[in-house]
């Protein structure tokens, strides 16, 4: 695949010849709200590199979930274009990990994890073997016969992640999958997640409202503006891998990056606080 030199979002990175996996051009999305049209996303341009872990942060309500739902094919009507150019190699194109979990309460942990394979008519033995493999990696082996209602919140999140990983898609779309967890559990699951991803060559879009999380996990962090959402800044996270979620937090480079991301996001949060009905965000705010 040729390098995409005309795409600002791609060339802003430091690496050479990053192949584009998902190209998003001039993406617009509005909803019919109670007070007329509500513009959720305005002119999103973003190139996601093949195999990268791209984190997206942004103020609440700026359209992060909407962006991911469009990529997941769940919002058929939008303006602009989305092209997946990743090499799927016979795998499913994408799977989404939903913000509200969506683990099926009526399926056991094992059945939930194997869901994607089951509905693709993969033979039962292989479904189970692959699901068990990921459940083991996520420390859920002892609970494969349990129903989700019998698990803790952290374990349910792991099931949610397992279901997406077992499906083995080329692209993983994750919408604040660890949002509901306490700090300690979050760090454990982050480490699990990094281990799973590092052993794969998946492209990941990961939404979070935690700056620490974005920097710990991501190759790059995209900061979105207030609604209507745009990509405001993209920062390279040049921390070495493999990373450890716990140790990184005292690393000097980490603190510096955190400062940079926060500076970019703070303007959005402050303006959101001071003026709820603000017009579209000023362009050219990137550093």
């Amino acid at each position, binding site marked *: 695949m040729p390098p995409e030199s005309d795409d600002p979002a791609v060339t802003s990175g430091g690496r050479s010849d990053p192949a584009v996996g998902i190209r998003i051009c001039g993406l617009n999305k509005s909803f019919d709200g109670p007070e007329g049209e509500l513009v959720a996303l305005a002119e999103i341009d973003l190139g996601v590199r093949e195999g990268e872990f791209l984190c997206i942060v942004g103020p609440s309500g700026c359209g992060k979930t909407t962006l991911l*739902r469009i990529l*997941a*094919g*769940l919002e058929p009507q939008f303006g602009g274009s989305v092209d997946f150019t990743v090499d799927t190699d016979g795998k*499913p194109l*994408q*799977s*989404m990990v*939903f913000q*509200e*979990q*969506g683990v*099926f*309460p*009526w*399926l056991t942990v094992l059945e939930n994890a194997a*869901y*994607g394979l*089951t*509905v*693709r008519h993969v033979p039962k033995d292989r479904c189970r073997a692959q699901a068990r493999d990921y459940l083991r990696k996520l420390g859920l082996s002892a609970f494969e016969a349990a*129903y*989700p*209602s*019998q698990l803790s919140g952290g374990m349910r999140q792991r099931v949610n992640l397992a279901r997406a990983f077992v*499906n083995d898609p080329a692209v993983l779309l994750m919408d604040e999958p660890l949002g509901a967890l306490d700090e300690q559990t979050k760090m454990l699951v982050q480490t699990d997640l990094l281990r799973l991803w590092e052993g794969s060559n998946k492209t990941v879009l990961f939404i979070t409202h935690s700056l620490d999380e974005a920097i710990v996990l991501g190759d790059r962090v995209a900061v979105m503006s207030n609604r209507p959402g745009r990509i405001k800044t993209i920062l390279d996270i040049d921390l070495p891998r493999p990373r450890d979620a716990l140790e990184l937090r005292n690393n000097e480079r980490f603190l510096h990056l955190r400062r940079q991301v926060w500076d970019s996001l703070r303007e959005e949060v402050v303006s959101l606080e001071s003026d709820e009905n603000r017009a579209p965000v000023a362009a050219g705010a990137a550093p």
Partner: protein
Amino acid sequence: MRRVEKILVVASPVGVFVLWEILAYLGWIDVRILPPPSSVAITMVVMFGEEGLLDHTAATLFRFFIGMAVGVVPGVLIGLTMGIFRWFRAFTNPLVALFYPIPRIALFPLVLILVGINETSNVIMIALGPFFTMLISAMYSVLNIDRIYRDVAENFETGPRHLYTMVTLPAAMPTLMGGLRISVGLGLLGTVAVEFLVGESGLGHVIWNSWQVLSLQRSMAGLVVSAIVGFAVYLSMDLLERYLVPWQKKTAPV
């Protein structure tokens, strides 16, 4: 269930019977109108032995189960189809709205004219209540499925077969069970009602017939047996629910 609750569950009906017996013994209630449990029990034993009460019970249960099956199965199937397919809902919903509010007992003469006075008309009358109840709860059980589950199914490109068996039906199951509990009550009511009206057999017939000849103890005995039948059916719903909705942690009433 905690032990205290278990005791209370048994203690409350037993308590009512003991109180009733005592009040009758003290003469505070008129035993000609409300015979005490002890004499009803004796009458019941006699009736089981000499008057074929067991056969009447069997006849009632038989009608009830046939009527339930005839009502519940098509009710669930049509209701689920209405929930799943918009176009089907659009053309069946007005019909449901038209027929559902008619008092079912008012349809009895019509049913009798159409099929005659026989076991078929009984079954139809018993089935009507459960049919509409299951149809409506099945439709709403599908319509009220959380959007997140549809989204997940869509994102994993779930085909129709897996969608219905792994998502739609299990998601609808708790609501369906609720509908079934109400249907069971309606079915029992309908069974006894048709036995009042046209029965030559069944507990409803026993209760009504004894009452007409002013044999209150017999009437009461029939009532008690039908209450026991209702109790047993209701308890079996808990077992059914545990089997059909195993993922739900329930604090069942009994």
